[in-house]
């Protein structure tokens, strides 16, 4: 692992891969919103599953510390721009933890460490569903209902975050999908990208 700062080329790679990841995440969000139970328990997992290839390409190509931190921080900024300002400190914490998980030499090129780092981010996303409810349920409910969230979904969300068991189900689903995503993406990476020499 080099200790040098990210170059402009690295930054552009990360930005482009993040743009692709968020485009997919947006589509997944729009697709799953029709089914409340899938929206709450599956969205993070499906996003992590489909988006892992973009993360892995960026991680293997850049291989510098701070990548996962920046990745989560941008998500925090997007959430803040959407009006959920109180989520920012939570996502900063997720960003720091995800980066701590990746401490070590050459970890961004290590499949297992990437799997752990990516799953940590995934767990952060699922637990993020609970944060608005634990912090400011009243104002969140008002805002979410105004955003077109059906009453049934709000009840489902409340049940989920107030029961540790249901939260655990969400976390397990996300971890499995994230890990599976990294596993499959690693194969695609080997099959296509390593040969093409764009990862070095």
């Amino acid at each position, binding site marked *: 692992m080099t200790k040098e700062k*990210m*170059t*402009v*080329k690295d*930054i*552009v*790679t*990360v*930005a*482009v*891969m*993040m*743009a*692709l990841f*968020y*485009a997919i995440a947006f589509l997944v969000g*729009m697709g799953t*919103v*029709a*089914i*409340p139970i899938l*929206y709450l328990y599956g969205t993070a997992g499906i996003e992590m599953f*489909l988006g892992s*290839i*973009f993360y892995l*390409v960026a991680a293997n*190509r850049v291989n510098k510390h701070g990548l996962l931190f*920046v990745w989560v*921080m*941008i998500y925090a*900024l997007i959430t803040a*721009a*959407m*009006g959920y300002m109180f989520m920012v400190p939570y996502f900063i914490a997720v960003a720091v933890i995800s980066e701590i998980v990746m401490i070590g030499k050459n970890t961004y090129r290590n499949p297992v460490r990437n799997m752990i780092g990516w799953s940590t981010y995934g767990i952060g996303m699922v637990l993020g569903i609970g944060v608005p409810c634990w912090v400011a349920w009243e104002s969140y409910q008002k*805002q979410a209902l*105004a*955003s*077109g*969230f*059906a009453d049934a*979904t709000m009840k489902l969300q409340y049940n989920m975050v107030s029961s540790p068991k249901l939260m655990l189900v969400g976390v397990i689903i996300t971890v499995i999908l994230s890990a599976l995503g990294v596993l*499959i993406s690693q194969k*695609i990476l080997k099959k*296509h*990208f390593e040969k*093409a020499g*764009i990862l070095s």
Partner: protein
Amino acid sequence: MSCEKRLRELSGIGALLLTFLACMVSIFTESYYMHALFVIWLAMLLAYLGFVKQSVQYVLLYSFTTFWLIMMIPKGVMIISPMLLGMIYKFIVPIMAAYLTFKIPSGKLIAVFQKSSMPQNILLILVIMIRFIPTISGEIKTIKEAMKVRGLTGSKKKVFFHPLRTVEYVVVPLIFRSIKVGDELAAAAIVRGVENTGKKQSYYETKMSKTDIVILTISLLLLIVCII
């Protein structure tokens, strides 16, 4: 004044503030009429700045969504998910405003962000993302055409039973193309001195133009009306 000239008058700070105001409208407005009023204002703005086609498309989508939400959902017609409609209804306002932010030169946005104390890395990532997101759909279209020419699209049955293979066929070339675009972008940025550590100045002014002031004043007034 031509449309291009009008768009040139819109500064980075103007576009960003407009997007912020649109987000506020989306969050705080409860009345259907006030919400519709702001959408009409944004549609007029888009048309004024030369995006007539997009403006009409947004208004049609908005009208359809609102019609379905108000008239069909209470009657129990749930062919389209009410939550999806609700999301479109809420997000269309910020998306319309953000469309303008996507369309102005990224130099204008960089000039604004440079004034803030944001770290340079995060600033660059944000600007590149804003610039790159609209090109993704174009890239996917090209890949689809290339797949069609080579006969890789196959039947719906094939797509359904081999989703991973289909994703691989689309995602791998998409990443290759994106990395190529990214490398060219990085090279162009380096040539223009992005790595220079000295204080940077911009070709674009960060001051608000008259057009900005008019647009933002009307938007702010509408926001106040919407909240009341």
